[in-house]
């Protein structure tokens, strides 16, 4: 079974862009998430990341990342509500609890937890889209001349992850197929077995890497230029998002204070940052260019042997185009894109 975050080769703009451009674009959304704590801005970043994933065809990865992100966000909200007792709006007094001491659940602590949780969720969705849309081979290829050993380790790990996932699935199935009279297999025993098996697998994968010449070191050949007409778009969007985020931060767009009472500002700077961040989610859209078919009237062409007659006149004279081009021939229609 494939991981929902597994890379699927597609011809979309995000997949076609160089890894650097894709990382800059998705990284800009993550920077926004870490720079801001304002829920509207974080929400805008989350929607932008989801939109980018949907437009890039990574719907499964977005769904899985949202599930994991919301689960993590929920955990953060619960923990924050339990451990932070700041805020004036007390929703519940849980009294004295072991380790935690006096616990008061406040609305402010919950909202602050939501802000933190949104930050985590945005980061997870952005990483999910990155994982499903950026070719790891291209990333490793770019990494190899810079850090050969790290690239080797990353290659080994990136291959072992799906192999180990497949092994885990098989072991789980074998566990379910054991007869009711056989000794039950706990998760610990399965994990030990998986670990032992993955070591064998690692040896096999490492042997394959040896055979492919990986141990020879950094390749000395010229690197293939990997042209992409979308790089400029993603770099530009990343620059605009980062600029808007930094300027916004400076002029007070991150207008959110959870304590002592909740204040969520929705001023012009905040809305402007939200709009820019939201719009950035459209960057991976594929613009279908309309093919314009224009009929171009060709200038009359004189045929050397038939004085005074154009091709059209000659064809009309002969009734049909016996040779040359008929007046209705499609070859006179020039396609212009």
């Amino acid at each position, binding site marked *: 079974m494939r991981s929902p975050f597994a890379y699927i*080769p597609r011809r979309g703009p995000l997949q076609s862009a160089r890894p650097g451009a894709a990382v800059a674009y998705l990284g800009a959304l993550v920077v926004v998430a870490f720079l801001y704590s304002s829920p509207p801005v974080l929400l805008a970043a989350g929607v932008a990341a989801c939109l980018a994933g949907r437009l890039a065809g990574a719907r499964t990865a977005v769904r899985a990342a949202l599930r994991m992100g919301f689960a993590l966000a929920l955990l953060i909200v619960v923990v924050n509500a339990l451990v932070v007792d700041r805020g004036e709006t007390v929703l519940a007094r849980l009294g004295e609890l072991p380790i935690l001491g006096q616990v008061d659940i406040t609305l402010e602590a919950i909202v602050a937890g939501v802000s933190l949780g949104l930050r985590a969720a945005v980061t997870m969705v952005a990483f999910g889209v990155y994982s499903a849309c950026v070719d790891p*081979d291209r990333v490793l290829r770019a990494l190899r001349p810079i850090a050969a050993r790290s690239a080797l380790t990353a*290659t080994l790990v990136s291959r072992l992850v799906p192999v180990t996932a497949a092994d885990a699935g098989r072991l789980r199935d*074998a566990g379910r197929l054991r007869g009711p009279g056989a000794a039950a297999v706990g998760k610990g025993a*399965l994990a030990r077995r998986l670990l032992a098996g993955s070591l064998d697998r690692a040896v096999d*994968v490492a042997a394959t890497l040896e055979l492919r*010449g990986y141990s*020879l070191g950094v*390749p000395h050949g*010229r690197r293939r230029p990997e042209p992409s007409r979308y790089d400029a778009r993603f770099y530009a969007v990343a620059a605009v998002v980062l600029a808007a985020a930094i300027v916004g931060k400076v002029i007070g767009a991150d207008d959110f204070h959870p304590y002592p009472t909740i204040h969520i500002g929705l001023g012009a700077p905040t809305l402007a940052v939200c709009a820019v961040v939201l719009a950035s989610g459209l960057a991976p859209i594929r613009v279908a260019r309309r093919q314009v078919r224009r009929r171009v009237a060709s200038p009359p062409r004189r045929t050397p042997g038939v004085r005074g007659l154009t091709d059209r006149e000659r064809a009309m004279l002969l009734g049909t185009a016996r040779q040359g081009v008929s007046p209705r021939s499609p070859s006179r229609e020039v396609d212009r894109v």
Partner: protein
Amino acid sequence: MSELAIRRGAAPALAVEQLSYSYPRAAAPALLDVSLEVAPGEFVLLAGRSASGKSTLLRAACGLVPHFHGGEVEGRVEVAGLDAIAAGPGELAAAVGYVAQDPETQVVSTTVAAEIELPLEMRGDGPGDRARAVEEVALALAIPHLLGRAVDTLSGGELQRVALAAALVTRPRLVLLDEPTSQLDPVSGDELIWLLRRLNEEWGVAVLLAEHRLERCLAAADRVVAVEDGRIGFDGPPREFLAWTREFDPTLTTPAARLFSLAGIEPLPVGVRDARRVLEASTRGALVSPEQHQSTARPKGPRAFEAKGLWVELDSGDGARDVIRSIDLTVAPGERVALMGRNGAGKSTLLRTAARLIDPVAGRVAAERMALLTQSPSDFLVRERVGDELPGEAGLAALRAVGMEHALDADPRDLSGGERQRLALAIALAGRLDGDGVPGLVALDEPTRGMDRGRKEDLHALVERLAAQGAAIVIATHDVEFAAEFAERVVLLGDGVVIADGPSAEILSGGWYFATEVARVLDVPGVVTPEKGAALLVDSPSELSGHIDPQSSEGPGEGAG
């Protein structure tokens, strides 16, 4: 140096001289005093039983032994003039390509194009050269449509071709293959062998191929080398190899050779075409099957397995698709059924659905006390003592059912491959035996993968015993020869539907790919095993007497299997 090499005036593609090798901490050497030479452009088949040393020899030829595995080595190995013991596998990569048995661990990249390009990139080839080489090797192996795919969306057969492409892209002088067809259906297996032959002929690549199913590749080989307990037992042309197997190791012979041997016909054929040529030249009339009119009606009565209007949908990442489409199937207690079909036809999915690992989207499936053994029996073994895996009376009864009650205190890792398979089956059976110790339905998924004939015979005996006790047996397999021996009924699946269901003799003699070698040789409905074929040849009016060698005849009734 061989005649071919001398004729071409080139260094041998592979030269092994008095090679002895022991794995670290091994009690006995894996290779002992092995000397072997493969000429440029030669196609050599490596035969031998399981654990005889074939894989170790291949690993020595590509530098993994001793560089990767360690251990003690003596002797000399040269690949295209390079000292393989001094140079590592990376340095040898340009001269030798290696394709191992398990395709899953042979790919290291995410996409097919990147996987094929990697060896060239590591070698430092320029972008233009790389693009051209990838395109050419993809065309040669008929996989250009796969270049943009992610490797984890490929089937086993496709993955095997990609691994072969990555091994061939550097245009090596020698390519080594370790049981490359073990996971492939007969169609893909035959395609791969003939593809290798074509590359061998057109590109001049020397091929050293280790295989158990010799009937698939013997006709393509120029020479056969048999490995016995780490030593070279035989080295010569395929026809002489068949004569050698008759005398020294009958488990290595092919079904067609066995057919001729039992019928007392000489010379032994190296392939179907060879056998047909001899028979067509000598038989007067068409051979008549003794069992042409067999009933395909299923017996009514109790059912160990029943599927009715079954639909199963799976999503492998590219969107959900129907893998099983409206299957109706019943299996009676004591019946032995082979489930066959191409890779991806739905065999494993049907068994997994019956075992409740997958939920059907429509229809119903019922299996009585079903024990399913998946393709990798070692997945069932998680403890260090057999008795700990199978405690109590239920465990002992299951061990008794598979004939393993003597191994209660053994460590599963010390058992042979066949014993581990039996133990895994016992784990699946434990608690699923009735009062008399009889299982309901025993299903095995590709149990003969990578097995030599001796182990297949042991498995056959076990299956016979369980069926005789009243268990229904369903085995999903690509091994037509094994199916012909154990099954009384064959169900052929194609793209999720049952395309044929009938007596094994009828189904396995009615086609070309899903037919035994004997069926392809004789082309007589209902005759699929060497024993039946030999009986027919001996009884038929023919002019075979001129070919029959009374000294070599084993007699059709002897040594079945």
